């Protein structure tokens, strides 16, 4: 079967599985989320009409008058129309509005720091693997320590040292609250200043994985015959490093981008919490503590969708970069 069609098919199945899991979880778990939600809604001054109840029941279960498959179909239809319900903790805002407000923060923070970590790790890994046994290579095991450190604890340490003791960066938040969000220089500068520590945390915690993977692939690529041939031909070492070794060794790192993205997203959810960063991770945790089930499910769906989408793009690109994957399928 065509490589691209097969990948598209796989992600369609994965998407369907995520949607179904999202449908099944609240129905399988003990407790009655709909009642809790409606009670919260009334506290916030919302009016509970039978329609509201029905809408929440569709999302979270608890309405036994409708058969399960009918609930499932209605749930999918609602999702297709982008209706995720009303958030309780941000009443009366729609869940989709709350999400779209917090997306840019997370996308910029996580996206940028992941790209920086990947480039840095791959470059360092290529050099470490190029000359095994040098001082750079002997640093590699130290990255295990860095990788065994929980993201949020690293965040706590960095905040303590750089923000509290040295006072270089603000401890919490996403921007100076005195400014109004907008595309002016003051605001962007303050966003960069506030985002530096969370970004540093993500880069430090995830760079080791890239470095290690690239270094190991580099070492095994260097033992290939075509490297020996290239050396025998008298090519300059820099050319062999870039065009022969690193180019082939980087392929698994590209393919593994997908999996590491999942880790990074997971880690950044908690990192955002440490910094009270106004991104989607704090929203998810806020939703959990406030029993805002509709928002919780919306955020989960959105994160899953984003990770699946990024993976799909990487997989399709990979098919273009490495013709062997296309030939094999």
């Amino acid at each position, binding site marked *: 079967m065509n490589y691209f069609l097969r990948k598209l098919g796989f*992600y369609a199945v994965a998407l369907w599985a995520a949607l179904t899991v999202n449908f099944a979880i609240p129905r399988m778990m003990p407790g009655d989320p709909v009642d809790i939600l409606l009670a919260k809604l009334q506290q916030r001054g919302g009016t509970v009409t039978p329609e509201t109840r029905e809408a929440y029941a569709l999302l979270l279960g608890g309405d036994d008058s409708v058969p399960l498959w009918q609930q499932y179909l209605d749930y999918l239809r609602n999702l297709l129309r982008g209706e995720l319900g009303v958030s309780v903790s941000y009443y009366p805002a729609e869940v989709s509005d709350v999400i779209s407000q917090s997306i840019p923060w997370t996308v910029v923070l996580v996206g940028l720091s992941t790209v920086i970590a990947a480039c840095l790790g791959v470059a360092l890994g290529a050099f470490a693997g190029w000359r095994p046994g040098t001082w750079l290579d002997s640093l590699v095991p130290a990255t295990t320590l860095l990788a065994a450190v929980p993201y949020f604890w690293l965040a706590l340490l960095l905040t303590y040292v750089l923000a509290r003791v040295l006072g270089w960066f603000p401890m919490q938040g996403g921007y100076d609250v005195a400014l109004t969000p907008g595309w002016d220089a003051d605001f962007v500068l303050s966003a960069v200043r506030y985002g530096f520590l969370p970004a540093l945390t993500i880069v430090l915690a995830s760079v080791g*994985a890239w470095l290690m993977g690239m270094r190991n692939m580099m070492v095994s690529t260097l033992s290939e015959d075509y490297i020996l041939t290239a050396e025998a031909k008298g090519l300059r070492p820099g050319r062999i490093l870039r065009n022969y070794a690193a180019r082939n060794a980087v392929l698994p790192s590209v393919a*593994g981008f997908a999996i590491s993205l999942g880790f990074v997203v*997971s880690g950044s959810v908690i990192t955002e919490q440490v910094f009270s960063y106004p991104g989607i991770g704090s929203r998810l*945790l806020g939703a959990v503590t406030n029993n805002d089930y509709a928002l919780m499910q919306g955020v989960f769906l959105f994160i899953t969708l984003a990770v699946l989408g990024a*993976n799909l793009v990487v997989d399709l690109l990979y098919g273009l970069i490495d013709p062997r994957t296309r030939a094999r399928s």
Partner: protein
Amino acid sequence: MTNPVLSVDALSGDAPSGAAAGRSHMPDQPVHPGRPPRTWRLMSPGLRALLPTMTPWLAAGLVLVVGVTLFGLLGPLLVGDPREIRDLGLAPPSAEFLLGTTQTGQDVLAQLAHATRGSLEIGFLVGVLATVLSAFFGIYGAYRGGVVDEAFSLLSNVFLVIPGLPLVIVISGFVPRESRGLWTIAVVLAVTGWAASARVLRAQTLSVRGRDYVAAARVAGERPWRVIVVEILPNLLPVIASQFVFAVIAAVLSEAGLSFIGLGASNSATLGTMLFYAQNGFALSLGAWWWFVPPGLVIALIGTGLSLINFTIDEVINPRLRNQREQRRRVRRARRAARKEQLS
């Protein structure tokens, strides 16, 4: 919650040539280790090939893991009550309280000992559960082949791309606090964490399954479960061991993250729980480093120790790595000897 070696392993599942080819070297290929330590020379060569050589990394890893485990096992017996409240809030480390006190005057060292035990417990539990799951889906699927294999590997790939922690957060969010016990958290973590190992095990099983001796066992009329348990499993043991170690690291880290945001097991105290209380007790802005540094450090030590042990297991799985290391050592020795000769 990154786990470098885990992602490296996951990479090799998809790697076009190099990593996958390296992985398929099993210990039954001829290995030429250097001179083995004296005590091991008594064993049969086959057994010796399975046993790792003692490297500084392995020694460091063992010291870390055994040390932390002993602290978790024996520590709680030696320290006082971790919940006892004193009129001595946020005291820095002193002779009486080696790691200071919390905001309510609780002994941090006592809490640390109990929390270490809790974290190790849940890490081990999840490690076992996740390894069993991944062994079932990875080995059984690959052995049966056909539709079963297709279905199982589709399932593990789907689980691999759905981000784990958000899923765990959502599940824990729906479980009411009172019914969120140790086992609930362990099962949730295991269910969301088995997929990467299953993929690695599947690739390994596929390579073992195609060998002649397995075919011979089948022709001889051995029952499928016997072929899997007696013929295939022993060859996979090093891989399973390394996947188990990964699973424990991942579990300790994820549990800490979950407890840190207040979604951990309600009836257990772990290192994550300590960090949760430290964060909510404003340890950071009050400058009480002795409250939040030790728990994270213990987590990091557990993770580092286990990863270092895993490096050595990797050498058992893939003798090429061991040969490379020994080659490098020989080169270093030769260089040193040459330098000495030059000097003299």
